[in-house]
């Protein structure tokens, strides 16, 4: 393992804000300096070293967090470059307003993965909660660029108010996926909950599993061999080769346009 390694030895009993934990802020510091770094925990300030064992080196832009727990929030917030690896189940707002680099979680994540994402690559190997790629606190629009991949299932409102970028969910998703979508692409490989694309204006929601019936405010626009689909399939396959077979049905898609209740011209593309 290269780079700096932080191993949680004293799991916090309540919410720890990990906003400052990324390689860019730690780079070049001595391990002792890293240990003295202050983090906000609930209403207190605590030293990083009281919670984590610090090892490795701070010369690279790589950081690994081991033994992550759901009390760790905002891990990778504002990440701009480098690689941040995590293992364990993390808390809320993983990769909040992340701008670049790679954030790789082996485990599950809480709500708000990639809120206000501006760029970069964020992957959760397991499942994640609600509001993936939605608006950051106070923002009107959701993620603006970048890629989010959820290996297994996701909660409600995947990609709500998303503006640009790509979200792929390997498993099932909850209600109101792509609600109020402004633009961008959401690819869902499993079952989807009710209210898909409610209030969407533009953008594409791609369902790899046939059989979904869009809401009455979506209009059937025909079945097509869209030239865009092979490109999308190739892109997703390049990221996740094991999903190749599940994407096969997308070569020919049925297109539904809406949400008409919001004057929207977005599309739901259903695998045939």
């Amino acid at each position: 393992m290269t780079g700096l390694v932080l191993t949680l030895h004293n799991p916090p009993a309540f919410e720890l804000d990990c906003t400052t934990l990324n390689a860019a802020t730690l780079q070049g510091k001595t391990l002792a300096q890293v240990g003295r770094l202050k983090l906000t925990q609930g209403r207190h300030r605590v030293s990083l070293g009281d919670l984590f064992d610090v090892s490795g080196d701070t010369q690279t832009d790589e950081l690994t967090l081991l033994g992550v727990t759901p009390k760790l929030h905002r891990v990778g917030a504002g990440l701009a470059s480098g690689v941040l690896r995590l293992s364990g189940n993390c808390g809320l707002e993983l990769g909040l307003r992340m701008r670049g680099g790679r954030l790789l979680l082996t485990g599950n994540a809480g709500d708000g993965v990639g809120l206000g994402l501006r760029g970069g690559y964020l992957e959760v190997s397991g499942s994640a909660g609600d509001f993936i790629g939605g608006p950051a606190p106070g923002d009107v629009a959701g993620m603006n660029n970048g890629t989010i991949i959820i290996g297994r299932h996701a909660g409600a409102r995947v990609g709500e108010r998303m503006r640009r970028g790509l979200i792929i969910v390997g498993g099932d998703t909850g209600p109101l996926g792509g609600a109020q979508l402004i633009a961008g692409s959401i690819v869902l490989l499993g079952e989807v909950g009710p209210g898909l694309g409610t209030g969407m204006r533009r953008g594409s929601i791609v369902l790899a599993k046939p059989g979904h019936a869009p809401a009455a405010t979506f209009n059937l626009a025909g079945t097509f061999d869209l030239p865009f689909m092979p490109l999308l399939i190739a892109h997703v396959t390049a990221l996740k080769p094991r999903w190749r077979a599940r994407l096969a049905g997308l070569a020919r898609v049925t297109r539904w346009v809406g949400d008409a209740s919001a004057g929207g011209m977005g599309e739901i593309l259903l695998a045939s």
Partner: protein
Amino acid sequence: MDGTLIELHGGRLYDPTHGINGEVRTLYLSADGIVPPPPDAGAIAQSYDVSGCVLMAGGIDIHTHIGGGKVNLARMLLPEDHDRHPVARGVHPRMGSGHAAPSTLTVGYRYAEMGYTACFEPAMLLANARQAHLELGDTPIVDKGAYVLLGNDDLFLRLLAAKQDPAVIGDYLAWTLDAAQAMAIKVVNPGGINAFKFNQRKLDIDEENTAYGLTPRQILLALAQGIHTLGLPHPLHIHGSNLGVPGNVETTLATIAALEGLPAHITHIQFHAYGNEGDRKFSSGAARLAEAINRQPNISMDVGQVMFGQTVTESGDSMRQYAGSAYASPKKTVLMDIECDAGCGIVPFRYRDQSFVNALQWAIGLELFLLAEDPWRVFLTTDHPNGAPFTSYPHLIRLLMDRSFRNEKLASINPAAAAASILGTLTREYTLYDIAILTRAAPAKSLGLSSLGHLGVGARGDVVVYTDQPNREAMFQRPRYVFKAGELIVRDGRVIGTPTGATHVVKPDYERSIERTVNDYFARFMTVRPQNLRVSAAEIEGEGRGRLVVYSPRRSA
């Protein structure tokens, strides 16, 4: 006398109420407040050598939006304001957050850190008075009070349109003050908020509200007369018509004239001091307005200075906030209404020094400060948070006291705005004595706060010790000591004690028969009873946590 007796010796006192201008005097403080020198020096428990320091009474903010529905709406609309400005426990006694619409705890601490010990919330609705008092009750350290909004409520307009006896209207004003536990009466865009609900988009001083056939002029006069007759210490607090509209200086001048010599306070006057000259049809009306106010001893004003940066505007003026929502930054707005009492609009805004309009607004505010001849009739405000958060006061004080600093800032703003302003030609510099008037003595006098704003025997014992330094911003940002009611609460800019301040209310006499009128009205039109809205003294005093200071004015003929 009880508790510890504290002696502050060697400091220079600025106490305009008693005409003390920088004389070295010794002050004695106890839990009773400021006390005469003890006959026996042995009684002194603590003695502070404050040589080289400046002593003033605790600051009083006469107009700051720190409680009530609109502040909470702003907090909810702007999670980023709290997200980006967290304050961990340890920095303050308890955690908090927020910059433009801070949490209640943060408001109290930040005011105390600057040496302010009393704050007045200027826009409380009777329908929302309980919420306002709950928030004020949760604001530590500072004394507080609130002004109740009248003049856009249906019952008042009905009474006025029916040409009711002024005595009945006066009783209604007094009943509302009593029910809401208020300290004064404020009118916002007289009749205009109400007219907005009937789809009018502007209402000038002699335009009729179509629903009631009343003009702002009639409403202002009825309110000012009623308040004068009740003998309230603070005159009608006026947020005039046409806020922010280029050319509104005419409206403001007409508003002053409409009062026919009755006392009144014009609030955040900077937002009402715009001409419509020049290429951009936006110019300064400060000189004309200041001249008019200098001639009219019945009028006082607070400035509502604009400072550059992100803030949020919170106002009862739904009509103007609706118009302003197009300029929201970030782009989001809330307009809302409770029980048709008045209105409410929240519009986030970022004042930019390179914007012609914003830069000129900044200059107009400073022009008003510097052209106002009588410091007893001008109060230092930013209309927190509408012009800027109150935490910018030390910077504003430096702008007023330090001409070269001011000119340096003037050179950095939008050049066309700088050229359009006479600010560069104004050489006046405020003195410490003037600042003590603006921020202490004058607001106390205007509100009738006999125990605050001065350093005489009998005062509550709110005393601030500043280290005298040429950088006035640094000086006013971080007092060396702040005492609240004789207790040391801030040392070197850090809060070390958090007493609960008193709530100041005014209770004029009134004819109880008005309750029948109010009850009938509520039974017919409202969703609740008057007793549901009425805030009792016990709610504020709650198990000794709060304390009411009641002023009982005597009616004038």
